[in-house]
């Protein structure tokens, strides 16, 4: 029995208003806070969108690196996964920025990388949160 079905047995009224968890998680990935907006939690969606977007943009302005997988560098797989968590922000930034690899000589390079990785990981947490709300695991 799935968690959704188990929860539906406990609370029969819930499924009528419940949204699709896959759609919620997908929207949460596309843009920060969009999953919560879809789930009707609009007051909390806006601060989430602002926080994650500001973190991502500060990471770019600090000349951090939008990681890509490199042969012989296994840790770049994890870093790429984290950065790709930012969804459309990551996609648009890669198209618009001249050097997605960052500026390694910049004094703020490491800070920029930390900000970019954190923004992606925050958005991945928002995806999981949207999933939990949609499946009824979180109220």
């Amino acid at each position, binding site marked *: 029995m799935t968690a959704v079905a188990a929860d539906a047995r406990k609370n029969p009224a819930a499924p009528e208003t419940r949204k699709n968890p896959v759609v919620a998680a997908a929207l949460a990935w596309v843009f920060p806070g969009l999953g919560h907006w879809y789930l009707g939690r609009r007051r909390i969606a806006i601060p*989430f969108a602002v*926080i994650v977007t500001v973190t991502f943009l500060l990471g*770019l*302005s*600090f000349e951090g690196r939008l990681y890509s997988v490199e042969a012989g560098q296994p840790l770049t797989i994890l870093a790429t996964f984290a950065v790709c968590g930012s969804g459309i922000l990551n996609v648009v930034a890669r198209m618009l920025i001249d050097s997605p690899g960052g500026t390694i000589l*910049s004094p*703020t390079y490491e800070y920029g990388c*930390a900000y970019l990785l*954190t923004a992606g990981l*925050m958005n991945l947490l928002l995806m999981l949160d949207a999933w939990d709300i949609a499946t009824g695991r979180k109220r």
Partner: protein
Amino acid sequence: MIAALLPVDHFLIMFVYALLASAFFALLWRESSRERWKLFATLMASLVLGGLAVAWLMYPFP
């Protein structure tokens, strides 16, 4: 780029990072306003004071 316009202030960058991370987790993990402010203050103090403590401990090393 903003980084080119602002002075490279390590404490300011760390402070802003702590601010964003604390606000995010306070909103994510707590429901009531009072609990959110409490967690925000705890996380903020931990990150900033912890960062200063680690920086101070690293000071003698090159």
